[in-house]
């Protein structure tokens, strides 16, 4: 190693290798005999989302716009990711399609409407992966109300099934109910920094 300074990288890796040099028993193989997959129960998803104070609405594809119209006051400004199906948006709201909107405008909007990538019934979780119908992460973060439209075929039963469907290299946001905290006396209260209201519209 003459001629090259020992970097911190060398130092840390060297210390870790030295720590393991004495050997010790090889660890046991990892057994994955926990539940991998289960039957999908969309009612369970609805119930568990509701448990965490999300609002769940059932609609057909054709009725999405009407359902959303009922959720948002007329004239509300709504942030829209560029790939959202246009038919989902009611005519009663003002759409603000993301073409590089600044944070101020996103935060000032009344709501955001997105699709989702996957949902997990057993934990009451929806996952966004930044696809064009979901948009940049900040879109679903700054507005106070998030409306997420979910197709039944996107619902899986378990966490392992969800990970198998997701692509690690996309930016992922797992959402289980609205923003919440248990920091005061361990009592869960909804609504801190993320959207304080989460609506999930479930399609068949």
């Amino acid at each position, binding site marked *: *190693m003459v001629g090259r300074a*020992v*970097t*911190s990288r060398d*130092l*840390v*890796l*060297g*210390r*870790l*290798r*030295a*720590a*393991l*040099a*004495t050997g*010790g*028993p090889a*660890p046991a193989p*990892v*057994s994955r*005999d*926990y*539940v991998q997959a289960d039957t999908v129960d969309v009612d369970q998803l609805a119930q568990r989302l509701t448990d*965490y104070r999300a609002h769940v609405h059932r609609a057909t594809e054709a009725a999405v716009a009407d359902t959303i119209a009922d959720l948002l006051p007329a004239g509300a400004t709504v942030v829209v990711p560029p790939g959202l199906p246009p038919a989902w948006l009611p005519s009663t709201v003002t759409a603000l399609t993301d073409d590089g909107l600044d*944070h*101020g405008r996103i*935060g000032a909007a009344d709501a955001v409407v997105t699709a989702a990538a996957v949902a*997990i019934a057993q934990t*009451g*979780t929806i996952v966004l992966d*930044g696809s064009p119908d979901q948009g940049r*992460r*900040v879109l679903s*973060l700054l507005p106070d109300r998030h409306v997420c439209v979910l197709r039944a075929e996107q619902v899986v039963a378990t*966490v392992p099934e969800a*990970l*198998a469907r997701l692509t*690690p*290299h*996309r*930016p*992922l946001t*797992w959402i*289980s*109910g609205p*923003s*919440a*905290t*248990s*920091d*005061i*006396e*361990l*009592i869960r*209260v909804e*609504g*801190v*920094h*993320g959207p304080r209201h989460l609506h999930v519209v479930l399609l068949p």
Partner: protein
Amino acid sequence: MTRRTFLGMPATAPPVTAPAGVGHLRGDESFPDAARRSLADPQLRRNLRHATTTIRAKSAGVIDEQADWEQLRAAGAAIKADTLHRLPDLLEQLEEKVTGAGGVVHWAADAIEANRIVTDLVRAAGADRVIKVKSMATQEIGLNEALEAAGITPVETDLAELIVQLGDDRPSHILVPAIHRNRAEIREIFLREMPGVDPALADDPTALAAAARRFLRETFLSTPVAVSGANFAVAETGTLAVVESEGNGRMCLTVPDTLITVMGVEKVVPTWRDLEVFLQLLPRASTGERMNPYTSMWTGVTPGDGPQAFHLVLLDNGRSAVLADEVGRQALRCIRCSACLNVCPVYERAGGHAYGSVYPGPIGAVLSPQLTGIEDNASLPYASTLCGACYDACPVKINIPELLVHLRAEAVESRPRPTAESIAMAAAAYTMDRPRLYAAGQRAARLSRLAGRRGRGLPPPLNGWTASRDLPEPPAQTFREWWAGR
């Protein structure tokens, strides 16, 4: 033994622990002294009892409905044990993947170096303020103090950390750092310290959370650099994960231009699939939820979405010394869920501050002394009755009682000269290895007790016992005397 060398360093070189004088791994006083003060505060004890009782019940409820909980625990423990066994290789793989995805990886041998790396990065970004996601690693290294010394303002954005920071206080729990405060106390802190707060602020948790939202919103939108920790880093893909509840994590990980993540080297997991185990274990063991409200995952930099500069700082700071101890290394499996704190009867009475370190409770009692070297935290392995509740609660099956006993032996061996205790222990062992001496000792004990102190009043250090309990009278006959006379 073969003497293998790495970069000229012999394999037998002594392990390097976390340096003193920086960070928060060492308390100012011993555990019994610090605990004595906490125990004298009835409000603190009420707050702790209420909080730990609440979370124990919540957690038990959601663990009960997970029928494969024991299989998940076994898998979690096995994945972590495997990870530790090949940690250097996994870290190199992680570095390659993060770098390939547009991130920059830095290596920090200790707290001083990590603080310098982060400070330089913040300066290079031209910022005089950073927003922070709650992170044990940055508390461990005292990053906030280092940033302040460099003229940079760190803003804690987690509600509990904000309460601690505004109250000029210290965190007392891994998950809920302000667990020692109740709502009325938090309202007082906000009224006193939070600029622009409504003087009519109510003391219900919803109103207090809303006040924090208003206070921090502008700061989130106007601060160009964020600092976070990481719950998991996937070597196979270079993906980082942060698990949180409030959305302050999403703010920090999404809104600023530059993100700096400081991560203990043991947080790496081998594969993407391994997350399926930990994302089930962590929320149920920690907040008692089926899933926490938000989990963010990112891999390097995503063009057009989120921070366009990402730095990952890999921190040793004594972890290699923990790894060097074949028994002790299991403490590095910890996923910081804090379940062991919530079930610990000692933590429930003494509170988190008594442990001196940022890592309180049972896991702190075995992790802190290993990170610093036993000499600097010698009283912590004794801060337990060895009741075993922590081992049962641990989602990655760290045998904390075994570790406590292991570290007690190290504490004894680290003392430079014999103590009254070590002399008494040696004498007891000598006697007990000689049945006739032992039986004579039994008779002598009876005589001395009958002769004098009836029931109460022993000399120090045994007076700790008789201060609040009676000691039994020795019986008229020992068992072996009874047996001999049958």
